[in-house]
């Protein structure tokens, strides 16, 4: 262990891999100093583990109905978080639902930022007409509230998990394009870009190899901070019955189903609400911590 740490801290790495890992290790040491970020990381890791082991962890089948066990309060024997209106164990549904939440997050987190970054860097690097056209397009998407736009898209595409993901991704790329463009504008005129241009590099090479790495940290931070919003939109779509379809245990749809019993059987809606709250909080804390580590303005010294 000590040997590994020394290898990672080596100020003169012997290979590209060691240099990369060493950088990562230094970032991790910085990250570790922030206790709130560690809590965020813990929550996100927990979500990952729960999602991975969901079938093993869930004490009951999340879909099988049992009307005799309907609306049991929390702490009932065998149902720690109680049961819903069809007698399904809420804990089991939350655990299985984490997979759906994670799937949506993962899909959105991969597609939207990539697309947004591409639009933003291209617009920022070329400027002029290209910038005008791409940014006005971005503005059009930004002009609508995210949820409304997602609703409209799902209404056209039809309800379902894949379409929900597509709708969320299509509505969440514009902020990334903005962030990437702003970053590109500051980077574009720097000496290191001038230097690589002077070496005869083409626009594609400069954008992919030199500009994007500088935008990546701000975009990653933005993604983690946005994850909470993505979960909420997915939940919102589920709540309105346009996202994941029953009987799949999606957290938003679960709140929607519990709405009818909110005053008498509060736990049916509250438990999935708590789950959304905790996971959103986790991503937010993680994003704040990552900002301290990744922000190019802080790195170096």
């Amino acid at each position, binding site marked *: 262990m000590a040997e590994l740490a020394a290898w990672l*801290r080596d*100020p003169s790495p012997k290979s590209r891999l060691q240099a990369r890992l060493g950088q990562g290790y*230094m970032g991790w*040491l*910085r990250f570790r100093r922030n206790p709130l970020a560690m809590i965020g990381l813990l929550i996100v890791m927990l979500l990952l583990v729960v999602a991975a082991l969901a079938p093993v962890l869930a004490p009951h089948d999340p879909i099988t109905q049992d009307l005799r066990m309907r609306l049991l309060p929390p702490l009932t024997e065998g149902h720690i978080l109680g049961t819903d209106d069809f007698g399904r164990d809420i804990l089991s549904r939350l655990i299985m639902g984490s997979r759906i939440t994670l799937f949506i997050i993962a899909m959105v987190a991969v597609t939207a930022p990539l697309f947004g970054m591409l639009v933003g860097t291209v617009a920022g690097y070329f400027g002029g007409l290209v910038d005008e056209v791409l940014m006005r397009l971005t503005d059009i998407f930004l002009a609508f509230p995210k949820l409304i736009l997602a609703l409209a898209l799902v209404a056209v595409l039809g309800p379902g998990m894949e379409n929900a993901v597509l709708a969320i991704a299509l509505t969440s790329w514009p902020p990334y394009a903005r962030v990437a463009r702003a970053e590109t504008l500051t980077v574009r005129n720097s000496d290191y870009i001038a230097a690589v241009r002077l070496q005869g590099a083409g626009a594609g090479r400069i954008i992919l190899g030199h500009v994007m790495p500088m935008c990546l940290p701000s975009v990653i931070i933005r993604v983690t901070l946005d994850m909470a919003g993505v979960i909420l939109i997915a939940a919102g779509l589920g709540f309105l019955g346009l996202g994941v379809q029953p009987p799949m245990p999606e957290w938003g749809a679960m709140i929607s189903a519990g709405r009818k019993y909110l005053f008498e059987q509060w736990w049916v809606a509250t438990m999935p609400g708590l789950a959304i709250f905790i996971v959103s909080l986790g991503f937010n804390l993680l994003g704040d911590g990552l900002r301290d580590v990744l922000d190019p303005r802080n790195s170096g010294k």
Partner: protein
Amino acid sequence: MTLLSVQNLRVSFDTEAGLVEAVRGVSFSLGRERLGIVGESGSGKTQTGRAVLRLIRPPGRIEADRMDFDGQNLMTASEREMRALRGRRIAMVMQDPKYSLNPVMKVGAQLMEGLRQRDRLGRAEAHAKAVAALDAVQIRDPERVMEAYPHELSGGMGQRVMIAMMLIPDPDLLIADEPTSALDVTVQAEVLSILDGLVRTRGMGLIFISHDLRLVARFCDRVLVMFKGRVVEELAARDLMQARHPYTQGLLNCLPRIGGPRVPLPALDRNAEWAR
């Protein structure tokens, strides 16, 4: 009379890469005179200057056997007492005025802010004092500069404004950290002469921090030469040419001279032994 006395000052940073000792046991004392601190980057000269004002942020740590300013112990002073000292009795001029002036506030407002809040002066009085301060740093058109934003000033002008601002409360000690390295040579000489004149006429102490021995020699009475966090030589500025320490000699000799021979410049010998 001793204004500032520092004994065995140490500044260290506990970073991810391990403990970094920036200043390792520096001692000096200063009267109402001009002291130069010279060294390469990383020699600890800047941290020494900042440590006097206790401007080292965590994870940095300051330790010293003694650090007294005009009879007050700076090591045990509360943060509140330090705030009362900073600016009012000990002022600091930094390298680049671009980062020291508030970009969205007019110069005049920045100059008057301290006067109005700290000294509770009226508007007209503060204005008059601010104009006088700009006048003292030989700004020809102070009224126009008062109405300007920092980005509308040239580097030399900006640095003069900084000096004017620092000198308004009439501090006893001025710490100037590379005050002219961002400026052109012609402007550099001008700004330094102004600074020099003010320090002399007001009888302040000056700590002038620079990597350029020539400047320090010209504008100081005494010079500390720092290397790797330690003082390797202390001597009167006029004796600089007779410096005995090979490191000081090296710093002097490595500068190109107009009309000098076309041979490689002597490389600076950085013998780690000297820093022990």
